């Protein structure tokens, strides 16, 4: 138990964008990572924090921190940048210091680049990487996702005109998607319309961006999460 890694799927990948969690688990298995998931995972508190419900956020954060602690995990890996930001940069305020390290899946996989690289087959495709706000601007993770994309031979990685720190929000953060889905969609459209020309795939590293972009629908561009993309390259021959 102890020393093992907890793959924290997060509510979105667990229940709404399941393909993200499935692909991530498959990738972890193929890499031979010993990890576990929690059936009764619960909530990290991010959504509550972003919508101003800080007392409730504290309650669930405490619950979650205790839960993870009680299982003895030393490391938590998340699919969702929101969970990542909240657990790694806000838990110390909400619940005090926690005895586990939290990383985003892109950071974790980046450390396994060498093994990954051996298995990734070429895909001839032009992709753009969309920086999720919580991962990029809020947590400063820009390099790892891009390096991972570049591991796949044959891929042409291009950039949004406004990227990295200047990246434009997909529109669904901060609880906007639940209260004003019409605004979230309209913002997502502006981002999709601004994509560089000739791009086949938009890679995101956030289930919220993923879900929101896909909801726009009718777009000629595929939207895919980073581990999903890597898994695809592992399969292609």
């Amino acid at each position, binding site marked *: 138990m102890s020393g093992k890694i907890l793959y924290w799927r997060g509510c979105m990948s667990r229940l709404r964008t399941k393909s993200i969690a499935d692909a991530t688990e498959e990738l972890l298995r193929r890499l031979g990572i010993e990890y576990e998931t929690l059936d009764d995972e619960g909530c990290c508190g991010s959504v509550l924090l972003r919508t101003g419900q800080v007392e409730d956020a504290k309650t669930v954060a405490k619950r979650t921190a205790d839960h993870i602690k009680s299982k003895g995990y030393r490391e938590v890996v998340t699919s969702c940048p929101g969970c990542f930001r909240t657990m790694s940069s806000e838990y110390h305020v909400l619940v005090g210091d926690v005895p586990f390290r939290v990383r985003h899946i892109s950071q974790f996989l980046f450390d396994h680049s060498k093994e990954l690289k051996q298995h990734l087959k070429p895909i001839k495709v032009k992709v753009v990487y969309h920086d999720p706000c919580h991962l990029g601007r809020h947590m400063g993770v820009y390099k790892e996702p891009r390096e991972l994309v570049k591991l796949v031979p044959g891929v042409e990685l291009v950039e949004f005109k406004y990227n990295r720190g200047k990246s434009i929000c997909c529109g669904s953060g901060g609880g906007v998607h639940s209260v004003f889905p019409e605004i979230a969609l309209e913002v997502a459209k*502006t981002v999709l319309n601004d994509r560089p020309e000739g791009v086949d795939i938009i890679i995101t590293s956030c289930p919220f961006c993923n879900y929101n972009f896909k909801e726009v629908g009718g777009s000629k561009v595929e939207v895919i999460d980073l581990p999903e993309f890597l898994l695809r390259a592992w399969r292609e021959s």
Partner: protein
Amino acid sequence: MDPAWLKSKRKEFKSWMTDEDRRMGLDRAITAYRAAREYALATLPELEQIRKEVRKIKERSIESMQDLVKGAMENIELVHGHAYLAKDAKGARRIFSKLVGEDKLVVKSKSLVSDEILLNELLEEQGNRVYETDLGEFIIQLRKEKPTHLLNPAVHVPKEEVAKTFSKLVGRRVGADIPTLVGVAREFLRDKFCTADVGITGANVVAANTGTLFVIENEGNARFVSNAPPVHICVTGIDKVVPTLSDAFKVVQVLPPYATGILMSAYVSMITSPSRTADIEKTLVYGAHGPKELHVIFMDNGRTEMFKDPVFREALYCLRCGGCMYECPVYRVLGGSFGHNYFGGIGIIWSAFTAGEENAAAAADACTKCAKCKETCPVDIDVPKMVEHLKQRLIRKGYLAPKHEEIKKSILKKGHPFGQ
């Protein structure tokens, strides 16, 4: 079901989002702004250092806001100006009402602070004729619309529409050609400047040690407004005062590139006293070619309240450059409906404190907290943090969106936000 505070705002949001003309106008403005600002920042690399100094200046100034205002007021009085402190909008309205009186011709240059107190309505009620002279404000005033951007209030009105508005004004057909349109405004307003009884301006920054007001502009209208009429009234926030002239100059350097992407504004007027001369027998007389009277009104209207909370205090550092609005993904689709009397993320905070929290509740739920504004801001204001903080306050007063409440209940009970 939406409660009233959400319902009305949702309607307003929708009408903005679905208005293609306005959206197009705004998109064009955003593209133009970004290109211009990139150029300006690349051309003036020293700004990177200066903006950091300005952040420090603002931190220091806001710490001693009350003392600085007191100092500025004393120094204004010393050189024959009149200074007033208005606690709230009501107080400011009372001062204005007395100073302007009735049946006057009033010219105004752009002032956000005057919008906080609904000054135009007040003056008109008293039987005064009021002309906004900033071209964008002038257009909005004629069209009886709401401004949509701090500095570029008519950013959403295409030239064809302006032509229609102006044709009505001058009683002849005016072509939808931009230089012609500008010419019409120039011609119409010129005589108003020279015959007005009172000129009203804001101030972008005030130096306490000399009592000097800085008015930054491009059109030259603020110079007219502050100089041609016999009475000049300036209304500004108590947050605008910095200790010294040198501090003020730093702010002046940062504002234009961040506000509009220009290297420096066409005009920066520094006003320290009414016009004066001592050319005849060395006898000092006030009222030479410029105004005889200078009145400066410092507005609190929620600013001290902002100061009291360490999180909201940061909002007082805002220079009102408006840059963050152009960069905000939500402002891009909601335009002037994203806020109340101030717009964008920082506008949520300012609207809450100057116009009442109820006016900011829905907009706070439309903010994605993406922090694009923070990244853009010359003084690094952490807007998303403040919006979250404001939302906490609002929830305590009952402004919790039903959807967010459902989410909370679901999370507490089921460990995820999706219900069922």
